[in-house]
């Protein structure tokens, strides 16, 4: 049987063939080579078909990845927004409270009605009390001295009235003697008798007056003594009260000074706390921005994936290939694969499915708020 030569060998092939070969051998070798090549082509075709299938798989998966990425950015944006609001609320409240504490403490320390002011006022009062106490003591000594002087004067007046009484008595005796002498003189002593009688009356009145004065002086002495002793006693009491008050004020002043010291330290602490809160706010503000960076990175990943997809599309559109793809079947496969991996309701939305077993992040949050339960709690 004669075989028609349907291929012409290249020079290299000719060289590769054994020199001593028949046509039949050549054909067998060739056939074997063709079969081998055919196998390789078939394998390559399968590989390409598989590759195309995978690319199509990727193409069908891409919208799901898009939806998932959007879900991630939307969820993180929403939670970050709430987090930001809450954190600022807390830090603002904290900052406001610490400033208020600082202002109150500062006011206590240095304001118009401050402890320090109170302490200074108390010191001034204490000084005045000390002066007052000393004045009382001085006044007391002066009063005692004055009392003695008055007593001495009264004593002298008393002696003087005693002298007057003596003189009055002596005058009375003289008047009696004069009367006797006048009686002896008879008619000639008549006028002298009248005078002697008048002198006797005068002496009697003088004595009575002197006795009255003496009694008044006695009363005055008793009253003066009583008044001045009472006055000195009161002055003593005032001085004691002033001294005691001064001591108490001194103690209060010391206590206030101690408290002022403590408040002073608290002011410093409060200032430090206030500064720390401000620093923390800045740190929080810094950290909160990472959500935006993450979102940007996810968007960039999607852009890259889109770029890869576009390149694949260019290749697929310019290549005539016979691979027939059942897109409905492929989409089902992608969704089935995704469904196995998914856990939360938000993910199921990306394949347009809902799951009764899973609760969306939003729903879960609403549920927690509604039931006032914290965390993932299941009750049986």
């Amino acid at each position: 049987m004669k075989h028609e030569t349907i291929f012409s060998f290249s020079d290299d092939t000719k060289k590769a063939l054994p020199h001593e070969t028949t046509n039949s051998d050549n054909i067998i070798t060739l056939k074997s080579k063709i079969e081998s090549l055919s196998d390789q082509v078939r394998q390559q075709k399968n590989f390409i078909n598989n590759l195309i299938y995978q690319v199509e798989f990727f193409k069908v998966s891409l919208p799901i990845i898009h939806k998932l990425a959007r879900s991630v950015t939307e969820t993180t944006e929403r939670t970050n927004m709430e987090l930001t609001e809450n954190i600022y609320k807390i830090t603002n409240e904290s900052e406001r409270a610490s400033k208020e504490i600082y202002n109150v403490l500062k006011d206590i320390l240095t304001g118009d009605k401050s402890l320090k002011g109170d302490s200074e006022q108390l010191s001034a009062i204490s000084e005045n009390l000390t002066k007052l106490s000393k004045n009382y003591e001085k006044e007391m000594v002066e009063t005692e001295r004055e009392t003695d002087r008055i007593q001495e004067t009264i004593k002298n007046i008393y002696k003087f009235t005693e002298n007057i009484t003596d003189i009055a008595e002596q005058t009375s005796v003289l008047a009696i003697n004069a009367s006797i002498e006048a009686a002896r003189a008879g008619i000639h002593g008549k006028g002298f008798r009248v005078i002697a009688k008048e002198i006797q009356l005068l002496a009697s009145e003088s004595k009575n007056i002197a006795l009255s004065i003496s009694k008044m002086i006695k009363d005055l002495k008793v009253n003066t003594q009583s008044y001045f002793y009472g006055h000195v006693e009161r002055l003593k009491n005032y001085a004691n009260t002033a001294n005691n008050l001064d001591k108490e004020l001194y103690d209060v002043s010391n206590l206030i000074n101690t408290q002022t010291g403590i408040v002073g330290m608290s002011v410093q602490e409060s200032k430090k706390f206030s500064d720390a809160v401000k620093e923390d706010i800045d740190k929080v503000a810094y950290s909160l921005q990472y959500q935006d960076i993450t979102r940007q990175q996810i968007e960039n990943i999607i852009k890259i994936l889109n770029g890869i997809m576009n390149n694949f599309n260019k290749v697929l559109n310019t290549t005539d290939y016979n691979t027939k793809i059942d897109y409905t079947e492929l989409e089902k496969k992608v969704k089935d694969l995704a469904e196995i991996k998914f856990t939360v309701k938000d993910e199921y939305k990306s394949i347009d499915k809902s799951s009764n077993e899973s609760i969306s992040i939003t729903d879960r949050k609403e549920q927690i708020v509604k039931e006032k339960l914290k965390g993932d709690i299941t009750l049986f």
Partner: protein
Amino acid sequence: MQKLIMSVDDSESMRLVIKKSLEKDFNLIEAENGKDALNKIKDLKNKGNISVSLFLVDVNMPVMDGFEFVRELKKDGKYSAVPIIMLTTESSGQKKLMGKELGVNGWVVKPFDPESLIKVIKALIE
């Protein structure tokens, strides 16, 4: 009176962080993207010709991105010389150069330090 700063960023939480960081020192007005910012500028002009003292602009935004917004803003005679700071996650030298060529005055990469941002803003507007 505190100066008015316009923050242009598509992220709501980012705008909130910017607002909270600056509100003690400046008045803030927000826009979601470049187009929204241009509309708000128009509104401010109509409401008694209120001026924005500085713009904080994100680069990547939907509808109208930061660069396009800067191009449009520079066409506005009133705002052609008003300071602009790009506040973005973009950190490449190429993008920064683009910003510089467009006439922006500063480039702050997120995350920003609030105190430093305040210093930069004050340096540019005071």
